[in-house]
């Protein structure tokens, strides 16, 4: 199975690399409303994944017969405030989490700075979770803010 995840990650990374999703100028072009590319990519992906997921859930089991169980993300105040913070970072760096790794793979050395920042940011959030949990109305530690 490890090889399957590695292969799917590789395909994902290749597509992100060649589509503009891991390209600083294409990200700024999206946020400046000057380039349709990224809106087209995300829109197409959602338009195809939605019916696909519906079919898989209706089928109910994986190809190997294991039950399909989709863990839903919890709703809390962090969805909006964390989203805004992430958006600011996406704009500054010109890359979201997946493309940070893709850019490093491509040889864009500055992406190493983004990776270091993201690791420190995630670590900081984890350390502060006990403090942030009540004001943000996030689930208990055992559940966390959501996977993804």
């Amino acid at each position, binding site marked *: 199975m*490890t*090889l399957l995840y*590695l292969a799917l*990650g*590789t395909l*994902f*990374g290749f*597509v992100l*690399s*060649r*589509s*503009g999703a*891991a*390209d*600083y*100028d*294409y990200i700024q072009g999206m946020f400046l409303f000057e380039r*349709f590319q990224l809106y*087209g990519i*995300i*829109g197409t*992906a*959602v338009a*195809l994944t939605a019916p696909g*997921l519906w079919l898989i859930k209706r089928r109910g089991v994986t*190809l190997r017969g294991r*039950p*399909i169980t989709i863990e839903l*993300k919890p709703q809390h105040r962090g969805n*909006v405030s964390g*989203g805004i*913070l*992430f958006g*600011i*970072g996406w*704009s*500054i760096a*010109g890359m979201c*989490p*997946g493309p*940070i790794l*893709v850019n490093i*793979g*491509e*040889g*864009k050395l*500055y*992406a190493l*700075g983004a*990776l270091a*920042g*993201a690791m*420190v*940011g995630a*670590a*900081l959030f*984890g350390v502060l979770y006990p403090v942030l949990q009540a004001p943000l109305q996030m689930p208990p530690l055992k559940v*966390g803010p959501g*996977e*993804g």
Partner: protein
Amino acid sequence: MPLLLHNLQPLHWSIAGVGIAAVTLSLMLLANRRLGISTGFEDVCSLVLSQPYFRRDAVIGGRRWRLPLLAGLLLGGFLSAVTGGGWSPTWSLGMLDTALALGPMGKLAWMFVGGLFIGFGTRMAGGCTSGHGIFGLSNGEWPSLLSTLSFMGGGILTTQFVYRVLLG
């Protein structure tokens, strides 16, 4: 507009969208896994940090599939460069180079700040473009719609401010 990577012409957006949907659906149909990248940062943190947050089942249990997926992203970018003109390290940063001629240390610092917002924000939101934006929206999840609108809004406001006011 060509990509920064070897000035390659990008894939058509519909082709890229099909590719991403194929990866997302394969993860679910083959392995009952929900696409998500930013939790992978926690997985990496958990290799060195021992706070309770990093010892959750969702983190420890996810490492064995999410870490290979993350390694694949690195490999995918590498193969894209190799097959697209050869792998060579670069500092080229397009519009930012034109607007603000930063040296390597300046670029690393700029990116580190962006990364801090990305790491902290995605974990606070409970997901990123993949987990909320692609999977969550496709699955009709309300928190994902809220998050997606928030990070699109945050990105639009920031880029508009940076390129139309600050550096414009």
